[in-house]
C-alpha cells in the first residue's frame, strides 16, 4: 500500500472508489455494536453471508458500528432502500435475504411496529426513534465497515483534513471551530476553539493532543460506539486539531474495558499510517503527527483530565490542582490540549461543511448536536443524536418512546453520576448547557437515565453516590470522606434509620464537597443528591419523618403482605421463597413472616393472582 503523495491523490482515490465496480451493489448492514453483539449479531451476520453465498447472489453483508436502536437488536438494514429488520436471529437469514433479493414480504416480528398504529414500519428513516434525530457525528455509523479505510474515504473521509491542510491556516481552522460554537462534549462545555487557541498561543515547540476516551459514566456508551463504528473520524478530528494547535504527538486514552474500540482504533491508526494520513509528512504537506493508544485500567477518575495525564505519564491516576491548566502545563509539563471523543469527531464535519452549517443547529449558546445514551425506564433504549435545544419531552417521548408498561415518567438523570435529575414539571426545558445547569443538572458526557414512578429518588441518589464514592481516588478529604459520609447518611435513610437533621447534613456536606474538592469528580459528586433534594424533598421527608418509602423500594421501610382475599393458596410463593418466610397450607391464604422476610420481592413476582402487596 503506497502513501498518498498529496491531497490530489486522496481525491483521486475517493473518485476511484466511487467509480469502482460494485460500490453500489445491494448491501445488508448488520449492527456490530456491543449491544447487538451481545444479542448475537455476529452469528446473524454469518448466517446472512451463508445464505447470500448459497444463492450465489450479488449481495454484500457488512458489519458496521452501532446503529443506535439497541432496544431492537440485532439490527439489519438493507441498502440502498434502507429496509430495517429488527431482532433478527440467524434462522431469519433466509427470510431476510429473500426479502432483499426477491422483494418478498417478511414476518411482522422482524419489523418495528409503529408505537401509535402498531403497524410494521419498513424503512429505517420512518422509525420515530430515528426520524426525530439529527445524526451528524453518528451519520456513518450504520453504513461504514469500521475496519475499512476505503469505506471512510469513499464517504468523503479525510477530505476535511485535506481542506484544512491546503486551504486553511491553523488560525483559520481555530476561527472556524470557534465560529461553529462547538463546546467540549466531555461534559464541561468549554468552548473548543478557545481551548485550542490557548494551547496554540503557548510558547514552545512540543505540544500534545489527547483524546479522552475514558468514558466511565454508568450506562453511557457513545464514545465507545463512535470509536467502534467510525474510528477514522476521531483520527481525522485529531489530525485537524494537531494542525491547528501545532502538535506533533497525540494520545488516545481509552478504557481497556472497550476491547472492540481499542481494536478498531488501532486498526485505523495502522491504516492511516500506511496511507500517509498519519505520521511524517502527511499528504505530502510537510505536516507531521503521530498518535499512540494508551489504555486505562478501570479508574473512573482517570477521565478527569489531570488524572488522565498522570496516568499517561505512568504515575498513579490522581488529579492535580488547576491552574496551571493543561494548555499551559499538561503532559510532561508541556502545553496540552485534551478533548472528548465526541468533540474530536465533530471537528471534521465542521471543517468539511463550514461553521455556519454546524452553528445552524442548536441554541444561541449551545450549537450543534449532542449524543445521548438513553437508558433506564424507557421504551427505546439506545444511542440518540439530537440538536441542542430540543426539549427533554421530545427526547424521552418522541424518540425514546415514553415509559414502558404505561407507567408515569418521574425524572431523568442527565450527566451520569456527576449530573442531576430533572423532574416531570421541567420536561419542556430545552437541553442546553445553561438551562440544565439552572436546574442543578449538567449536560455532562450525555448519559441519560430515566426513572419512572416505581423509582425511589432517595435510593436513586444513593446509587449514584455509591458509584462516585467507590471511584473517589482518595487524595482530597472532602471527596474521600465526604462522599462516604453522604453515602452512609443515604444508606441510613434508605434503611429506615433516618434522623431529623439528615437532610440539612446532606445539604451541608454536598455544598462543601462541591466547592472544596480538588477535581471535577468531587466537585460534581453531590449533584445527584442535591438535585433530588431540590426536586423530591418530600420523598426524603417521607423516609426520615414518616418511615415510609413512597415508591416502595427501600427494603428497610417496606413489608410484603399476602392479600387473603386474593390468595388462592397455590403455594407457588411459598416454594419460591428463598428464606422460608411464607407459611400456609394448600388452598389456604398464606402469610409472610416479616421478621424472616428479606424483601427480595420474589413472592410478588411469581404470584399470578396479584395477591402479594407491598406496604
Amino acid at each position, binding site marked *: 500500500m503506497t502513501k498518498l503523495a498529496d491531497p490530489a491523490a486522496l481525491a483521486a482515490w475517493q473518485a476511484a472508489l466511487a467509480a469502482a465496480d460494485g460500490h453500489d451493489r445491494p448491501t445488508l448492514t448488520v449492527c456490530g455494536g456491543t449491544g447487538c453483539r451481545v444479542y448475537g449479531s455476529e452469528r446473524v451476520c454469518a448466517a446472512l453471508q451463508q445464505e447470500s453465498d448459497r444463492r450465489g447472489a450479488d449481495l454484500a453483508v457488512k458489519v458496521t458500528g452501532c446503529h443506535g436502536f439497541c432496544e431492537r437488536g440485532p439490527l439489519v438494514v438493507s441498502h440502498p432502500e434502507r429496509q430495517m429488520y429488527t431482532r433478527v436471529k440467524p434462522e431469519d437469514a433466509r427470510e431476510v435475504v429473500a426479502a432483499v433479493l426477491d422483494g418478498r414480504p417478511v414476518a411482522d416480528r422482524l419489523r418495528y411496529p409503529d408505537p401509535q398504529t402498531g403497524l410494521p414500519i419498513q424503512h429505517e428513516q420512518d422509525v420515530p426513534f430515528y426520524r426525530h434525530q439529527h445524526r451528524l457525528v453518528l451519520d456513518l455509523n450504520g453504513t461504514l465497515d469500521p475496519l475499512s479505510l476505503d469505506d471512510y474515504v469513499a464517504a468523503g473521509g479525510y477530505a476535511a483534513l485535506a481542506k484544512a491542510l491546503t486551504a486553511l491556516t491553523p488560525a483559520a481552522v481555530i476561527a472556524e471551530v470557534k465560529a461553529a460554537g462547538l463546546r467540549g462534549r466531555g461534559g464541561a462545555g468549554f468552548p473548543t476553539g478557545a481551548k485550542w487557541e490557548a494551547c496554540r498561543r503557548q510558547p514552545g515547540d512540543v505540544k500534545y493532543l489527547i483524546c479522552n476516551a475514558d468514558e466511565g459514566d454508568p450506562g453511557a456508551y457513545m464514545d465507545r460506539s463512535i470509536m467502534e463504528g467510525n474510528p477514522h473520524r476521531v483520527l481525522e478530528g485529531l489530525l485537524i486539531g494537531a494542525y491547528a494547535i501545532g502538535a506533533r504527538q497525540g494520545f488516545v486514552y481509552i478504557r481497556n474495558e472497550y476491547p472492540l474500540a481499542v481494536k478498531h482504533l488501532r486498526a485505523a491508526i495502522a491504516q492511516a499510517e500506511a496511507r500517509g494520513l498519519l505520521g511524517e509528512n502527511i499528504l505530502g504537506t510537510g505536516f507531521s503527527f503521530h498518535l499512540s493508544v494508551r489504555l486505562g485500567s478501570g*479508574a473512573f477518575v482517570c477521565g478527569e483530565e489531570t488524572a488522565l495525564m498522570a496516568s499517561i505519564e505512568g504515575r498513579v491516576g490522581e488529579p492535580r490542582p488547576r*491552574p496551571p491548566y493543561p494548555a499551559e502545563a499538561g503532559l510532561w509539563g508541556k502545553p496540552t490540549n485534551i478533548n472528548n471523543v465526541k468533540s474530536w469527531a465533530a471537528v471534521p464535519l465542521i471543517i468539511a461543511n463550514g461553521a455556519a452549517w454546524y452553528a445552524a443547529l442548536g441554541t444561541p449558546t449551545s450549537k450543534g448536536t449532542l449524543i445521548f445514551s438513553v437508558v433506564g425506564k424507557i421504551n427505546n433504549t439506545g444511542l440518540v443524536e439530537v440538536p441542542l435545544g430540543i426539549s427533554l419531552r421530545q427526547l424521552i417521548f418522541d424518540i425514546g418512546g415514553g415509559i414502558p408498561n404505561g407507567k408515569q415518567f418521574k425524572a431523568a438523570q442527565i450527566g451520569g453520576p456527576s449530573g442531576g435529575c430533572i423532574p416531570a414539571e421541567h420536561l419542556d426545558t430545552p437541553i442546553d448547557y445553561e438551562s440544565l445547569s439552572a436546574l442543578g443538572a449538567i449536560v455532562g458526557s450525555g448519559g441519560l437515565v430515566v426513572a419512572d414512578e416505581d423509582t425511589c429518588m432517595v435510593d436513586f441518589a444513593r446509587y449514584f453516590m455509591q458509584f462516585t464514592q467507590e471511584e473517589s481516588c*482518595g*487524595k482530597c478529604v472532602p471527596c*474521600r470522606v465526604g462522599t462516604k459520609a453522604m453515602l452512609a447518611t443515604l444508606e441510613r435513610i434508605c434503611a429506615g434509620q433516618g434522623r431529623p437533621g439528615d437532610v440539612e447534613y446532606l445539604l*451541608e456536606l454536598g455544598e*462543601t464537597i462541591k466547592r472544596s474538592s480538588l477535581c471535577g469528580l468531587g466537585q460534581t459528586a453531590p449533584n445527584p443528591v442535591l438535585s433530588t433534594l431540590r426536586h423530591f424533598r418530600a420523598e426524603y421527608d417521607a423516609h426520615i419523618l414518616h418511615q415510609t418509602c413512597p415508591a416502595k423500594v427501600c427494603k428497610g421501610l417496606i413489608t410484603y403482605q399476602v392479600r387473603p382475599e386474593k390468595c388462592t393458596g397455590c403455594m407457588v410463593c411459598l416454594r419460591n421463597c428463598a428464606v422460608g418466610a411464607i407459611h400456609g397450607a394448600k388452598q389456604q391464604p398464606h402469610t409472610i413472616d416479616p421478621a424472616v422476610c428479606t424483601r427480595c420481592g420474589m413472592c410478588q413476582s411469581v404470584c399470578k393472582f396479584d395477591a402479594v402487596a407491598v406496604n
Partner: protein
Amino acid sequence: MIQLTIDDRRVTVAEGRTLLEACREHGFPVPTLCYHPALKPYGGCRLCVVEVAQPPPPGDARPRPARLAAACTYPCEPGLVVRTNSEAVQRSRRLTAELLLAGAYQSPEMWALAKSLGVEQVRFQLPEADNCVVCGLCVRACQEIVGVSAISLIKRGMAKQVSPPFEIASAACLGCGTCVLICPTGVLRLEDVSGYRSAHAAGAAEAREYCQTCSELDLEPHFVAAPEALLAAAREGTGL
C-alpha cells in the same frame, strides 16, 4: 513581582509564590495539615482553602465570582482577590476538619486542630478509623527528603493507605524514621516502621538493630517541624 489583594489589603509577592506562601509572608493565618515547607504542595487536606476571584476584565467593574481553592497549590496571579477567612471559607474548613476527624477521632492532635477551627462535634465516624488521615506527608517525606520512596499511597478512595510497594517489606527503607516524625496524627509507630509499613521484615537482624537504635527517638508527632530539625533528629537516631 505580583500584586494581589488578600482580605482587602494590597500585597506584593515574588513571582512563583503560592497563595499560602503569600498569606504567610504577609501575616494572614491559614491552617494547613498536608502542607510542609520542605515538601512540594499536595492539595489534599483542603484545610487551607481560601476564596479566590479572578480580577474583573478591563472595562468591567463587576467583581468576578469567587471559588474555593487550596492556597497551598494555587499560584499567585496578578490582580487576584483572595479572602482567607470569609464565612464560606470557615464553613468549608470546619466541615473538612470534621471529616478528617471521622477517621481520626482518637487523635488528640486532630482534635486540637479541629477545635481551633470551631469544630465541636463529629457527626460521622468511620468504623475502621485508624487515625491515618492519608495526608501523604510520610510518603512525600520519604520520596522528597529521604529520597528512597520506601512507602507510597496504595489503593484508592476509602481504601487508600500508606504501604511499602506490594505490601511487602522493601529493602529501600533506611529506617531513618522521618515518616514517623512528620506524621501529624502520630499514627505511624515504631512497630509500624519495623513491621508492616517498613522496608525491614519484622524479625530480620537489621530490623531489631534498628529498633534498638530508634527507641531513643522522639516519637511525639511534629505538626510542622522544621525540616532541618527533622532530618537532624533522623540522622541522630539512625547514625546515617
